[in-house]
């Protein structure tokens, strides 16, 4: 028997009442442990539940996560929102429908043929009597019903569907009319607006204010909080906070305990202390001896080596991180856009030494979220400030400079590759060594030091040493293990210590750089034997779905005639070798001034069963554009004292003038598990861009971003 598995969330929350509330007339309220960070999860989940329960989509409401009432489904991360919450809500909705149907037929004492079922109401045709879900929800049976952990797939098959009509996403009306409320927009009586008074860098100790600025400002009904080197300014008038923040910053003395950096990041990646782990087939990392590189001396083998480099990348949401908090009756209520509200609750419990039951985290939308950004930090800081001013809401916003300089970045990285291809075009040996900092510094109750302000409160300026994560496809070694069959693999994860900047989870973690290195080096090897890029990929894959996605891409690219003077490149990946499959093609021009103009992009994606096709398209097209921005424009700049990329002039991102025409093909796999799509496109997109540039220039540019300066440098070096 093929089974549909309800997933991990149902194991923890197995009752119908954990997922549904019928208190509002004619509205099905659905609880989810995932948050809508712009990936349209609230619409996708509502569609799944609507289709199965038979209640109109417009009447299904996904409740914003509230730690007092919502299931704890972990973080909204790692492309697991639909696989986890979608599967859980599918199972819960099916159980609900089945139980409701049985209850109604029995209560009305009728057969299935004698009823009509419309929008959540069952009506006996003869007697005109009816029962609704809302009636059923009042029964003890509803209250006690347990959702099975798996179903016969045949039973649930009729609800495996591709939504083929236009759906208005749940948030769009309020967004286009300016009514959508972000945490930044919250307002309460007597509320204090706040900003943090940041030092020049991570290693700065507060010494003193000058010119008695603190006393002068206090007379203006502006409050200043000083807790060792953690400083904040607050007022009921947001503009006064902004204005005097600048004035205070000019009247303050910080001691530089340590320099921010001593060397270039790429030198540090090569030379600093590191821990090296062997990554094996399946993607797990092990503390084992790293074998030496093999040599293939026979003439039938061609050996290539190459290095690929990527700088630090920032999340950079358009609206800097924000949070609102109040401490009243010895309880905290914190409004946040963090991906990890339950972890945040436990962290606050640990820091404040307060029972977690006295802390409520409520999700409120923030500006775009692509991983562990400033959301957790700002929520923690807002909670600290709220404790200083009981019974008053504190709305703390980071500034643009805060966001750019203090968020945890996606780490810089270096990949060293060696590959051997035989005279028949078969790759027989593959070595990929990834060097990078950690992608795993989310705060938790045992790792409070991962809150940036925790260290300033304690005047602790020692950089915490990370330990390598070993589970399959974690952090640095995400997608280091190729899906391709390359004969013998030598895969090494190097966690490099004492790198200059703060890092953590940014969309795809290490997969972005690992996939680009893999897919570009694969092209380099193919070129030595004049093998077509599609062919070399297909020839080294055994996974039929992977092959199908690449063929699908090829079919779509062939239809469009290549524009004169433009060049094409492709890239492929299956995210974590277990989530969605994605192949990307790019057509671009390299102008005489070495600026890159994107013209066309094709995306083929297999994300399992399709619940909401437009949602998948939005995710992969958005992901493509973000990855294009990373590839062509982005790198965090810093010197020995501070981060230089403080604003949008000093950290350039893609704009509307370089958006290609994007054609996306979604392959529906009915009856197969949902596979997340939030991150799958980034690696293939960067690789496709890089490979197209290589076609245009006749050589691969191996350092990102592909700016005029970097391309020029690499061309001159060769």
């Amino acid at each position: 028997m093929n089974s549909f598995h309800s997933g991990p969330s149902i194991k923890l929350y197995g009752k119908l009442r954990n997922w549904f509330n019928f208190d509002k007339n004619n509205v099905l309220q659905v609880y989810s442990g995932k948050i809508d960070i712009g990936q349209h999860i609230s619409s996708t989940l509502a569609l799944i539940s609507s289709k199965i329960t038979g209640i109109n989509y417009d009447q299904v409401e996904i409740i914003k996560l509230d730690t007092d009432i919502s299931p704890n489904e972990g973080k909204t991360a790692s492309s697991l929102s639909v696989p986890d919450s979608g599967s859980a809500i599918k199972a819960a909705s099916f159980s609900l429908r089945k139980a409701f149907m049985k209850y109604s037929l029995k209560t009305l004492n009728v057969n299935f043929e004698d009823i009509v079922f419309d929008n959540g109401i069952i009506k006996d045709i003869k007697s005109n009597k009816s029962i609704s879900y809302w009636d059923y929800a009042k029964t003890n049976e509803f209250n006690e019903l347990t959702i099975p952990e798996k179903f016969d797939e045949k039973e649930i098959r009729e609800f495996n569907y591709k939504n083929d009509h236009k759906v208005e996403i749940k948030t769009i009306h309020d967004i286009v009319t300016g009514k959508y409320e972000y945490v930044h927009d919250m307002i309460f009586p007597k509320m204090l607006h706040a900003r943090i008074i940041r030092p020049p860098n991570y290693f700065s100790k507060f010494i003193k204010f000058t010119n008695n600025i603190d006393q002068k400002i206090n007379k203006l009904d502006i409050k200043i909080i000083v807790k060792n080197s953690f400083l904040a300014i607050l007022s009921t008038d947001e503009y006064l906070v902004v204005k005097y923040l600048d004035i205070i910053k000019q009247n303050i003395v910080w001691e530089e305990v340590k320099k921010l950096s001593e060397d270039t990041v790429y030198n540090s990646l090569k030379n600093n202390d590191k821990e090296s782990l062997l990554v094996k087939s399946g993607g797990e990392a092990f503390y084992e001896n790293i074998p030496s590189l093999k040599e293939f001396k026979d003439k039938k083998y061609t050996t290539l080596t190459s290095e690929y480099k990527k700088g630090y990348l920032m999340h950079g949401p358009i609206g800097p991180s924000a949070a609102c908090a109040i401490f009243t009756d010895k309880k905290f209520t914190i409004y946040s856009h963090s991906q990890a509200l339950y972890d945040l609750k436990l962290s606050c419990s640990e820091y404040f030494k307060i029972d977690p039951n006295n802390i409520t985290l409520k999700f409120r939308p923030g500006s775009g979220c692509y991983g562990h950004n400033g959301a957790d930090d700002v929520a923690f800081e807002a909670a600290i400030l709220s404790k200083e001013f009981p019974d008053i809401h504190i709305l703390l916003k980071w500034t643009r400079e805060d966001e750019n300089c203090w968020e945890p970045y996606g780490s810089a990285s270096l990949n060293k590759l060696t590959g051997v291809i035989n005279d028949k075009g078969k790759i027989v040996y593959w070595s990929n060594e990834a060097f990078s900092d950690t992608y795993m510094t989310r705060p938790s109750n045992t790792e409070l030091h991962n809150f940036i302000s925790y260290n300033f409160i304690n005047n602790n300026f020692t950089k915490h040493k990370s330990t390598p994560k070993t589970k399959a496809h974690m952090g640095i070694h995400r997608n280091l293990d190729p899906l391709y069959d390359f004969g013998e693999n030598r895969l090494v994860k190097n966690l490099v210590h004492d790198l200059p900047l703060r890092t953590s989870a940014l969309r795809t973690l290490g997969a972005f750089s690992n996939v680009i290195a893999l897919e570009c080096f694969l092209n380099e090897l193919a070129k030595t034997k004049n093998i077509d890029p599609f062919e070399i990929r297909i020839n080294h894959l055994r996974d039929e779905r992977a092959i199908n996605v690449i063929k699908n891409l090829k079919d779509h690219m062939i239809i469009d005639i290549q524009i004169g003077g433009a060049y094409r490149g492709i890239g492929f990946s299956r995210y974590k070798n277990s989530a969605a499959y994605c192949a990307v093609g790019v057509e671009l021009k390299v102008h005489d001034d070495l600026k890159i103009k994107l013209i066309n992009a094709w995306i083929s994606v297999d994300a399992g069963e399709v619940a909401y096709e437009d949602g998948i398209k939005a995710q992969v097209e958005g992901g493509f554009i973000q990855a294009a921005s990373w590839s062509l424009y982005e790198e965090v700049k810093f010197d020995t004292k501070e981060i230089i990329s403080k604003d949008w002039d000093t950290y350039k991102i893609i704009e509307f003038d370089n958006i290609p025409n994007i054609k996306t093909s979604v392959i529906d796999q009915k009856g197969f598990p949902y596979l997340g799509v939030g991150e799958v496109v980034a690696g293939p997109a960067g690789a496709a861009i890089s490979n197209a540039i290589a076609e245009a220039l006749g050589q691969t540019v191996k350092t990102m971003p592909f700016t005029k300066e970097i391309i020029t440098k690499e061309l001159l070096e060769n």
Partner: protein
Amino acid sequence: MAKIKCNLNINGKNKTVYIHEDKPLIFVIRDELGLIGTKLGCGLGQCGSCAVLIDGEKKNSCNILAKDYQNCKITTIEGLQTDKGLNTIQEAFKHFNAAQCGYCTSGIIISLSSVFLKKNDPTKKEILSCLEGQLCRCGSHASVMKAIDELKAS
């Protein structure tokens, strides 16, 4: 700190506020008048999320002073809607679900309004020119471009 009287015309209504004379327009719009659709982004005039129309022209409201625009017609995202409903740009954005997190969207709609309210069929160059400095981080650009194509076709 003394406050000054400031008369503003916002979304067709005359409003009088008493503000610090160096108060940027965005803080008056959001904090004094409660129009939260105008978003505080960079505060440096670089990202466009705070864009409003001033006498029909797009302007970032975070780095201009409210007192300097007393004799102007200011339109925020809330003012684009009429008694007949959403304006054509808002409708097109709805039709194509042209937003992800949506934080940048009101600025982009305002920006496009500065062109489409003057001209039914602006050139691609004119559209890209008005979108210069309208930053989006989620990558909603592709769906925005589809909405623009529909606007041009209608």
